[in-house]
């Protein structure tokens, strides 16, 4: 994938969904674009890429305590042997599918935060993913943590983009929401139908909130396509879904578009049965996509500011089930990688013998990870976004 310099100039004024609040007056595009052209993203500005692993990735077979007899005993047919894993020290090793991440680890550019979870873990995919994406473990929250970050960044043009057709809740705010950009880019129609489509995005006073949202999404589409669309040229190469998403992100970062946060994802981790092969295949896809992305990002000033966060809604039960798989569990490891990262372990490895009803006990609150990203990558006070939570992981970035 190539992203043109010209694309960057045009692209540097993105306003995504939500910047036009329902009933708000129309944004003056000319003013915005002038301002954006005069003020592109500084090359030393931090950029966050959030990678969600849907389905509940088995943390114990990702960062593997292979030498621990309790691990071997809990899942005899599912366990990796010590000689199979990629040694990290501390009695832990990476899944054999994660060879590229092992290189990043050796290079001190990969941090592994251990035992990440939240109090009173929920075993429902949907509830647990909602908790992770809203950063609200105690009560349901209509907004995602990056959505609230968008809300508090005031009048700046919107700067969060999801490289997926459906917007993940983590990027939905009260006033603002991230834009979506498919890997294939956005090419608007021209001529009479193009003019008509652009007019269809105008707000109409007195219309129902749902209709106003449709109109706004059409207006946001036009902005996104005009500013980001030309920058994306599909490579056409036959590559995995995540690699394609990260390719789009890499191109946008290199072009200097003013996006500060990106969302990408990989699904399929709900391995209740025949887990070992499936998970290793998925982790290999993750590994290849992430390490190619990390290598590419090393090569430019802007790329060297990029930090990637990888998480899943929960880990899995310590003991295997009868189907050579594992059922829904609790805490798991989180990866943070990139040039600004100080590699190594953070947080304690949960005990395999002191369990909570067959599940790992969390040792690190997931909001510590988010607070670190907000403070040290996005430069925002985490307390404003995480309901006062401002504990960070010392030394991971700053």
């Amino acid at each position, binding site marked *: 994938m190539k992203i043109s310099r010209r694309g960057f100039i045009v692209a540097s004024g993105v306003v995504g969904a939500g910047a036009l609040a329902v009933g708000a007056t129309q944004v003056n595009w000319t003013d915005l674009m002038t301002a954006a052209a005069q003020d592109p993203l500084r090359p030393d500005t931090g950029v966050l890429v959030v990678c969600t692993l849907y389905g509940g990735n088995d943390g114990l077979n990702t960062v593997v305590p292979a030498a621990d007899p309790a691990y071997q005993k809990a899942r005899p047919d599912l366990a990796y042997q010590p000689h199979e894993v990629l040694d990290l020290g501390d009695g832990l090793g990476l899944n054999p599918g994660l060879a590229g991440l092992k290189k990043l680890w050796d290079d001190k550019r990969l941090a592994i935060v251990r035992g990440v979870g939240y109090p009173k873990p929920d075993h429902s995919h949907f509830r647990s993913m909602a908790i992770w994406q809203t950063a609200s473990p105690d009560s349901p929250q209509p907004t995602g943590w990056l959505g609230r970050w968008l809300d508090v960044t005031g009048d700046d043009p919107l700067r969060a983009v999801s490289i997926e*057709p*459906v917007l993940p809740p983590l990027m939905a705010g009260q006033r603002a929401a991230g834009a979506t950009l498919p890997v294939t880019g956005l090419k608007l129609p021209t001529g009479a139908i193009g003019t008509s489509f652009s*007019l*269809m995005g105008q707000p109409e006073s007195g219309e129902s*909130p749902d209709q106003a949202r*449709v109109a706004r999404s059409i207006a946001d589409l036009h902005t*996104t396509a005009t500013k980001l669309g030309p920058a994306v040229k599909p490579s056409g190469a036959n590559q995995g879904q995540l690699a394609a998403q990260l390719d789009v992100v890499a191109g946008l970062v290199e072009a200097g578009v003013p996006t500060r946060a990106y969302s990408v994802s990989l699904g399929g981790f709900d391995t209740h049965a025949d887990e070992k092969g499936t998970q290793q295949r998925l982790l290999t896809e993750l590994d290849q996509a992430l390490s190619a992305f990390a290598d590419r990002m090393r090569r430019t000033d802007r790329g060297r500011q990029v930090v990637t966060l990888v998480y899943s809604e929960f880990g899995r039960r310590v003991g295997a089930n009868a189907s050579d798989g594992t059922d*829904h569990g609790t805490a798991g490891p989180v990866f943070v990688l990139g040039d600004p990262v100080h590699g190594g372990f953070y947080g304690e490895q949960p005990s395999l013998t002191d369990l909570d009803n067959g599940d790992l006990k969390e040792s690190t609150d997931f909001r510590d990870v988010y607070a670190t990203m907000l403070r040290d990558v996005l430069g925002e006070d985490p307390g404003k976004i995480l309901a006062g939570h401002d504990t960070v992981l010392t030394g991971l970035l700053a």
Partner: protein
Amino acid sequence: MPLLDDRAATRRLLDRLGFGPRPGELDALAAGGFAAACQQVLAQAPDATPLPDVGAEPPAITKKASAAERKQRQKTLRGQQVTAAQWWLDRMAGTASALPERLTWFWHGHFATSVQKVRSARLMLHQNQALRGLGGGDFTALAKTMIVDPALLLWLDGQQNKVGAANENLAREFMELFTLGVDRYSENDVREAARALTGWTVNRDAMTSSLAPKRHDNGSKTVLGITGNLDADGFVDIVLNRPDSPRFVAGRLWFRLVSATPPAADVLDRLVAGYGPQRSIGGLLRAVLAEPAFRDPATTLVKQPVEWAAGLMRALGVQPSKLPVTQLEAGLRGMGQVPFEPPSVGGWPAAQSWLTTSAGLARLHLAQLIAEHADVSHITSTAAAGSALGVDTWSQRTATALAGLRGAQLAAMAACAPEYVVSQ
């Protein structure tokens, strides 16, 4: 609160309990008044169209299979899946008896099963036919059929669940997503319920499931406070007898057919009364239609992509299987919804989730594809576009946007207007 007039309420009825009007349908149905229209729609029974013959499932791949053999199998499966989806879309777009089809679609999103893991269009169609046959009857029969449905068992690892070490997937999702709602049971209930569901196996060729006694846990289990040697049937009975269950089922139907805002307590009581001890889905629908909220102009819904596309094809008289299938599928995929492929067991999202920037463009492309394959000679003005799509009045914004267009372009853009993307 001013209610929708009879005509507007009838249009909503056609949208929510069907896939929108076919040409002339709204005028005909509205002429007799809303109450009569409700009776007519509720009386609709499924068309007796036989399932399509997608051919035999390709034989399972052995470890020795070459890359070419794997690829060929994959291709065959994909082809069968496309045929199945086309067949269903044809029904949605063409049937005069839309309610059973709409309920089948609702239950598909409820007992959300994906062909991506089941890997068999035949089994998906088998499940689809069960949903069609039972979807307007009693929830008890539907739930008892689904818990041992071959596709659902494969989807939620029910076949892997056996005595000695249970697999909890089906037990948990059945309570959380199909019958009770989250937090209406304990983690221990999940573990015990999984034991009650042990032993079911699937015969893919025969499209049947059966209980293998040796794999079933015959010990005593306690689920939701009731102890016994529970099996699948007994487990379903316990769950459906919980007061939480009718409320949950009524709430899910309300969410998809009426409003994203949950029903008020008194409304929910009336819905549950309509559902009754028989657990009658028809009774529940009747209660929904009797609610003033069903005629409240404020209870709009963003149409799901398949509902929007099927509705547009109904309105323009286009048969989905006559469209270039690759483009049809790309359009639906770009909007985020392909039949038989829900993203997870939780089903599809709703409301604003469909209104992403990229979905907006996919919607326009699909609208253009459909309109180009339609006879649009009668759509000569914005007013004519409105009457073709069942929209009485366009806003000033939309009228301005449509002013310069004609023919297929006019029809396509009208279908992308907020007034049509949202069910009024």
